[in-house]
């Protein structure tokens, strides 16, 4: 049985045939512009939400090849929102879902980590973390997700004075630190978590590490300016 992988809405087999052809053609017969058009057509024809989302992801990739980054981003968001997690066809496209989620998470980093947009990106970061086993995502690929999620947890902890969210933030910061022990940005984040949790001993320890590795003195002054928790049992 050919096209057995396809669980979309087209029983005639035309859509999977076109998709299979597009996937096999590594920019030989189709110019990048033609690929964009072909995937736009597939998005238009497909009625199943999950396969539509898959084609939107492919369209985003094709747009990326043409350096049409804003359009690529828009299509990634559209794909992320189109995936139907309840639909019977979802398991067949879970890899694309994980990939889309991860690409969006990376977008937040590439855009300079705008804190005012963090909440918009957090679901994508969490989705990548929860579905990483369905995509070729390695642990170092997830570092941005740990950082973004951790930042969200810390902001929530500070806003609502919630210690458990502070602990969630710390878990993310520690995971990041263990993967990149000399990264001063990760150390600053770790410092902020310990500061929130009023763990003076560990704040001092992280500060000492920052003095050691922050050669540019970009993060150390920020940490020092935040002060230290009061003396006492930690």
């Amino acid at each position: 049985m050919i096209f057995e992988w396809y669980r979309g809405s087209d029983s005639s087999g035309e859509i999977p045939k076109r998709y299979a052809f597009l996937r096999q053609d590594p920019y030989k017969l189709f110019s990048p512009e033609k690929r964009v058009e072909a995937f736009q057509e597939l998005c238009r024809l497909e009625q199943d939400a999950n396969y539509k989302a898959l084609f939107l992801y492919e369209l985003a990739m094709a747009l990326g090849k043409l350096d049409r980054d804003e359009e690529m981003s828009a299509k990634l968001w559209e794909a992320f929102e189109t995936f139907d997690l309840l639909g019977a066809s979802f398991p067949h496209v879970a890899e694309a879902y994980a990939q889309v989620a991860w690409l969006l998470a990376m977008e937040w980093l590439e855009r300079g980590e705008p804190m005012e947009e963090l909440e918009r990106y957090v679901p994508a970061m969490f989705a990548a973390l929860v579905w990483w086993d369905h995509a070729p995502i390695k642990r170092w690929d997830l570092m941005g997700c740990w950082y973004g999620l951790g930042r969200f947890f810390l902001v929530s902890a500070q806003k609502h004075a919630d210690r458990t969210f502070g602990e969630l933030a710390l878990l993310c910061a520690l995971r990041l630190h263990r993967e990149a022990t000399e990264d001063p940005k990760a150390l600053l984040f770790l410092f902020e978590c310990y500061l929130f949790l009023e763990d003076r001993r560990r704040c001092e320890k992280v500060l000492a590490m920052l003095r050691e590795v922050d050669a540019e003195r970009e993060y150390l002054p920020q940490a020092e300016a935040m002060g230290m928790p009061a003396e006492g049992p930690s």
Partner: protein
Amino acid sequence: MIYDWYRGADATGGIARRFQELAGRMERATDAEALLPELEAIVAEEQDPNMRAYFLWYAGSLLYSRNKMALALEYFLRAYREFDPLEASFPAVAHAYHDTCSKCSGDWSELVGVDDRDAVEAAPMELAVLLWSQQTSMTPAMQLFGLGILAVFFLRRAEDWRSLTLCELTRIASAREHRCDTESPISLWTLYEASYYLGRRKDCERIVEMLEKVDYQGTYLQLAARWGLPKPRAT
């Protein structure tokens, strides 16, 4: 190199040697509990928190395998409190940390009748399991119960703080749980709650259809009937 696994504070190797010898005896003994005072002495002597945690985790695992659940849980919880990922010795015991978090949070504690913990206490443990899962052979697909705990924790905070972002995190966690166990009415109900708050009316309708097929006792269907369907969101 022997005792290469040891990353503790004792440079003489004495603690590592004593632990190794004791572990051998504990595994052979029919009454491993009788040897616990010796293990406690090693724990008391060890200065490194991660190695202390490792020894406690070892005792917990052994007791767990012998079906001594209440005592095993005590050791796992003590280990959990000792682990310090900031210390240099942590990478050597990361696998034990991951297992400890998983064991402390799991529903098996209900078996021993000492489960006075709730999602607030378990959520950090489950997040740790998720964050460290790539270091082990455990994938999120094996973390069903834990994803459920995270979903419930996020949902309660979402309700308290009126946060749609946390509702989204709930939906993602419970959807993953649902995809691993499609007929579980509990995960369907959490998914319903999150979808309700997010104004996903069609999803709520579909969840009710699924509940009609799998909620044999009707518990969650009653709840769904009481909640009703959300108004569609404008956006």
